[in-house]
């Protein structure tokens, strides 16, 4: 790997190597820029380091304590936040549906939420490119959304127990389903400058890290590509501060390595630390916040899960967890809410399932032991639905320090009326599907999934933190690209869209530079 000196002025520093940071890093390196990535976590070797054990794999999560406030406090850590080269893609489930064009103009359509300053069609070429590069397995043609210019490069992965059950239940009540698009390989796949990646072996362990390299987390895709083209990855380097000159531009990023402070000189900074760490870093340094929008409008998808026990053996730990999808509820006809949601089948691991029974079901003692005896017969489905931005949901700095010595972020979240209605709708639909599929002892687990918003993009510097190219309205050489820039959540799992934005942000930067 190429390396740079701290006192050499590199073209770009990328802070964070997850879904937002890794793709643009590879793009910059390919264009010949001197690019350095600072990553707070370790650079793992999945084969040697990833155990098939949920508890051990907690090492993939951002476990520095955050304070969860509001009426629906959000659990962080294993529920949504990763650390390490690869960021949260190390433990994403690999669902990669595309958003729909109408997701980008919610305000125009419903008079609530926000319109994006870009459209689906600005991102479309990047979706095409990403699906080919990552080796997404999925059905072609895809049954929902606008016609596509490209087919998925690999056929869908085999359906596991929960996916077959969802198919059965949906069929009985006339809901359309399809094998889902997943960023895991249904056959061995060759990626230029990365090499061969092997097919998924149905371990079902995606949320605790893929040890086979079948899952397209960015540590096995964009990161090796970036390194091939000359980027330097600096793991265990925690960015804490920016040095700025008279014009307000950033001249260096200060970071902590082995407990010592170092500073890397640079021409540009791409902040890709995720929805919580990006605004925390900006608020700590009072940077890029003339709009007052940094930390505002924290959002999380309506993510209700429904579990049931079946007569058949389901063994929900095997196979790609999210095998089947229905997008019929994107704009339900009988909706009393704006926007809509997806329904996806879900596999699960025993510790995650048991913890849900405990935390959200309040089940313990003999009741819990008995319920867990049915683990091999459990199957789940869940929804991912739009969450509207709300000024009362925000992030602030507390006066308690975390393990890194920085103030802990405090995040307020209360689900709004629109989300409550959508959740009720989704729960009724999913309970019907599960009943028709033959489920007994159905349980719902209320949940708000993914961390979105806090540094929104927009057209004006008094209402947004960055413009449509991801550039700060205030600091001329600061760009943000991660889940924080989403003005609205989109009714879809976010990773593919973040990666598409990342490539677009890189291309716009490069075209302006030339």
């Amino acid at each position, binding site marked *: 790997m190429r390396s740079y000196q701290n006192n050499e002025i590199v073209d770009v520093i990328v802070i964070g190597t997850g879904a937002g940071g890794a793709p643009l890093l590879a793009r910059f390196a390919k264009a010949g820029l001197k690019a350095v990535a600072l990553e707070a976590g370790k650079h793992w070797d999945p084969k040697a380091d990833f155990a*098939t054990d949920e508890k051990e794999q907690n090492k993939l999560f951002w476990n520095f304590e955050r304070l969860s406030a509001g009426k629906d406090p959000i659990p962080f850590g294993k529920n949504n936040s990763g650390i390490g080269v690869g960021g949260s893609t190390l433990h994403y489930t690999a669902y990669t549906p595309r958003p729909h064009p109408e997701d980008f103009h919610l305000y125009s359509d419903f008079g609530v939420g926000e319109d994006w300053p870009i459209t689906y069609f600005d991102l479309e070429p990047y979706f095409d490119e990403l699906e080919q590069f990552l080796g997404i397995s999925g059905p072609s043609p895809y049954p929902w959304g606008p016609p596509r210019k490209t087919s998925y490069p690999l056929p869908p992965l085999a359906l596991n127990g929960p996916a077959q059950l969802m198919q059965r239940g949906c069929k009985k009540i006339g809901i359309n389903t399809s094998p889902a698009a997943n960023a895991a390989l249904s056959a061995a796949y060759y990626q230029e400058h990365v090499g061969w990646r092997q097919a*998924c072996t149905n371990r*079902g362990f995606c949320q605790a890290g893929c040890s086979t390299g079948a899952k397209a987390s960015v540590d096995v895709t964009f990161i090796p590509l970036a390194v091939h083209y000359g980027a330097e990855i600096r793991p265990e380097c925690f960015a804490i501060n920016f040095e700025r000159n008279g014009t307000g531009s950033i001249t260096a990023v200060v970071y902590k390595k082995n407990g010592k402070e170092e500073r890397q000189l640079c021409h540009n900074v791409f902040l890709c630390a995720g929805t919580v760490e990006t605004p925390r870093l900006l608020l700590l340094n009072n940077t890029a916040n003339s709009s007052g929008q940094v930390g505002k409008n924290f959002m999380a998808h309506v993510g209700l899960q429904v579990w049931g026990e079946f*007569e*058949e053996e*389901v063994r929900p730990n095997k196979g790609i967890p999210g095998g089947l999808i229905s997008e019929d509820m994107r704009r339900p006809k009988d909706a009393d809410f704006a926007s809509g949601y997806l329904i996806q089948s879900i596999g699960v691991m025993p510790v995650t399932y048991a913890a849900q029974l*405990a935390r959200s079901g309040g089940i313990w003692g003999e009741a819990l032991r008995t319920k867990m*005896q049915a683990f091999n017969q459990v199957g789940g489905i869940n929804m991912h639905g739009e969450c509207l931005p709300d000024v009362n949901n925000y992030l602030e700095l507390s006066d308690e320090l975390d393990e890194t010595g920085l103030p802990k972020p405090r995040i307020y979240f209360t689900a709004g009326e629109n989300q409550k209605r959508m959740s009720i709708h989704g729960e009724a639909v999913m309970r019907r599907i599960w009943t028709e599929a033959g489920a007994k*002892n159905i349980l719902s687990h209320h949940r708000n999934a993914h961390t979105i918003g806090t540094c929104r993009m927009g057209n004006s510097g008094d209402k947004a933190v960055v413009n449509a190219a991801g550039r700060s309205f205030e600091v001329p050489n600061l760009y943000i690209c991660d889940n924080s820039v989403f003005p609205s959540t989109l009714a879809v799992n976010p990773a593919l869209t973040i990666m598409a934005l990342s490539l677009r942000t890189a291309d716009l930067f490069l075209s302006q530079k030339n």
Partner: protein
Amino acid sequence: MQQRYASGTVGALIDTNFVTPVTRQVLKERMAMAEAKPCFFDSPAFDLLSIVCDRLMAQDSENRIVNVALFIDERLKNKTSDGWRYNTMPPDEKMYLKGINGIEETANLSFKKPFSQLTISQQTEILGAIQKGTAEGAIWKEMESPLFFEELLTEVTEIFFSYPLVQEEIGFVGMADANGWVNIGLNGRDGIEPEVIISNTP
């Protein structure tokens, strides 16, 4: 409790090539950990927490599969977090110490005896009251008892069901996936996965 799966499945697999080296190491270290000595809690607090964990996981204190309290002790000693806490709750160390005192206080107020000397059904009753928020005692006026119970129960559950011998009890051998899985559809069982020996449909 009725046993649905045969014993010994995890033990029979752990040293085979079905388990990756790193997975084997982690599981063996965990089983060895179960013999450790506590160091965060003093001994009365540790003993009380051990009994509370037993009630929560319906374990016989004389014949435990694993003492969950040891793993809580280890985490608090190492000062590791799970990444978040309720804004209204004190930090974990404080929450645990306060919660243990709260349980003892409620036991004394309700039955005029220390928690450890109560019958199992009295202990269960007290924990139920703490879960519901109806437990007596000054400590629960300072710290919301249902949130304490939720945090405690979730941690105990995660530790308990991470223990290989407990996973065996639910017919789970997911750790033995070095070669992956083939029969992943409904009623699909791979050769090394245990079959139900006593069947009762849900």
